[in-house]
């Protein structure tokens, strides 16, 4: 008998119907979020010491390069940026930057676009696709994230899209940190040491509209 058959033979039971599993969720206990004020709720969580991210607000997408330049100048970093191959960013004037699509092992700054963000925790939600690589967001020292204000949702349950899942769906809530030595918190353990969110007030087209 195969291992699979042997294990399953010991675990025989009627298949649960989906309503049983759904009933277990009911109204899950979770932190309250003021749904009428998602932006300020989100920003409050983003500023918590555990998340420790900075932010900026821009009116339109064309303001994005200037906002990134401001941030990098403040950090005394050069205008070099690992940029995802997302056609929606083509409207921006990147002439002041040295751009590249593949992250170096010691990449300084990477831009990523969050599909949504969660006010409950201050999390940024990403998905992989041909225009959204994953690795640059973990190699970089400064993680710069573009987030349309309209995309902020209240609770973690709002994060996943229904239907088939992307190859990787990931939630980033702060910077890479560790408490492995004597429980003392250190930021920049393996991945980003800095997280900077640039909030976009304008409407932002969905990737499939391109």
């Amino acid at each position, binding site marked *: 008998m195969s291992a699979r058959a042997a294990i399953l033979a010991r675990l025989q039971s009627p298949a*649960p119907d989906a309503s049983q599993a759904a009933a277990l969720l009911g109204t899950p206990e979770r932190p309250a979020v003021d749904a009428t004020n998602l932006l300020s709720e989100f920003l409050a969580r983003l500023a918590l010491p555990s998340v420790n991210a900075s932010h900026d607000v821009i009116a339109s997408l064309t303001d994005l390069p200037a906002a990134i330049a401001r941030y990098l100048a403040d950090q005394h970093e050069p205008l070099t940026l690992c940029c995802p191959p997302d056609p929606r960013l083509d409207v921006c004037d990147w002439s002041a930057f040295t751009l590249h699509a*593949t992250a170096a092992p010691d990449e300084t700054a990477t831009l990523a676009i969050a599909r949504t963000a969660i006010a409950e925790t201050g999390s940024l939600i990403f998905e*992989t696709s041909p225009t959204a690589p994953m690795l640059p967001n973990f190699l970089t020292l400064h993680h710069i994230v573009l987030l349309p204000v309209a995309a902020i949702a209240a609770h973690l*349950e709002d*994060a996943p899209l229904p239907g088939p899942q992307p190859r990787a769906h990931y939630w980033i809530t702060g910077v890479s940190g560790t408490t*492995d030595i004597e429980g003392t918190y250190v930021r920049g353990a393996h991945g980003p040491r800095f997280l900077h969110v640039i909030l976009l007030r304008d409407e932002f087209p969905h990737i499939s509209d391109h």
Partner: protein
Amino acid sequence: MSSFTTRADAALADPILKIAVERTAGTAQAKRAIAIDAFPDFEAARTRAAAIKDHVIAHLGPYLEQFEANAIAAGAQVHWAQTADEACRIVIAICKAANAKTVARSKSMLGEEIGLPHALEEAGIGRVETDLAEHIIQLADERPSHIIWPAMHKTSEQVSALFKAKHRTPHEEETIAAMAQSARRELRGAMLGADVGISGANFLIADSGAVCTVTNEGNAELSLVPPRVHIVTAGIEKIVPSMPHAIHMLRMLARSATGAALTQYTTFYTGPKRPGDRDGPEEMHIVLVDNGRTKMREEGLAEMLRCIRCGACMNHCVVFRQIGGHAYGGTYPGPMGAVLTPALDGLAPNRDLAHACTLNGMCQQVCPVKIPLPTLLKGWREKSWREGLEPTSMRAGLSLWAWVATRPALYRLGTAIAIRAIRLLGRNGWIARLPLAGGWTRYRDLPKPAAQTFMNQYKQEQRK
């Protein structure tokens, strides 16, 4: 003297160990308390989490089949292993087929449980532990002493000396931040150069076939995205029906483990790289491991399969705080380890773990899935007794106690005499030496008993 007693004795005599354990466990306990105070209704959330796990465990077979079908549909390959050896053999075969020279491992307690680090070594495959704590213990050639902070037993001074001896460009400044940077420099290249990435799973999502990992360091993603092959080894009890169920469990896990609302990096992997993707592995393998879990389900330990490996029970355990994790001798320490180790490694060599417990109930109170740990421990004690594994001195002593205890007048007389005798030995409410209890009083004082027995006091109260 049994091996656990020897190890616990050695641990008690090690003052540095106690400082190290106290620093991390103390912080964890304080942070958890703040997080739970801020949560709307943690008690109801625990009941819900336990019910979700019980539902999954009752229907484990169908859920595993559903998970398997969805994972395969997403392009992953699913393997099944009944034992630890079988699981290791499967992992090694995948590594060999991929011509792997080095693997990057993201911390997984299941990996430790099945002895994967050792199996990789035997197969001549280089292993890079990428979690900072696992990296520390790999350099020190030690075993994890805690399921969340595997290097909890090490002080910063010890870590500093270790990195200076083993890192190519070690830290110069004596700060914990500088030490972490030294590890970052050392590990970055190793992660990017690995042929295979191996992880565990915090949750397996049945209705999508996704595998969820959580880390605060981001080392899972750095270990699992660059290599050509990603292997997941997961215990079969890690299933949840859907994402909303996983979300409820994630809220419980982060708060119970570190006191955070959520871990920094929470990732759901569904199959290998897709057409057009710029990164991600070409192959994804998921090894579903039983290793005693079906037996636990059949033999009265189903509740233990609720465990989400948060570590709260050990952080709050007075015994763990005194002796640290290594004294328990198995992969899993603390109260959950004392229940799991006899199931995984046999009762006879581990029967005394069930006695490493004061039955104060703290572990059960903090457990986010309400596992009745003290009851399960008592179950092991009883089984050990029934199977004649308890030493004869204990059996003789307890038989005498049973004989007296069933004769109430005699029992009351005996305890009253004992209390008076013990009080004579006490000073300022504490007893430093007690005949026949030297093992206990050598490293700590015993509280002086109350002036009267509980039964006497209770009767007086009733008369008022």
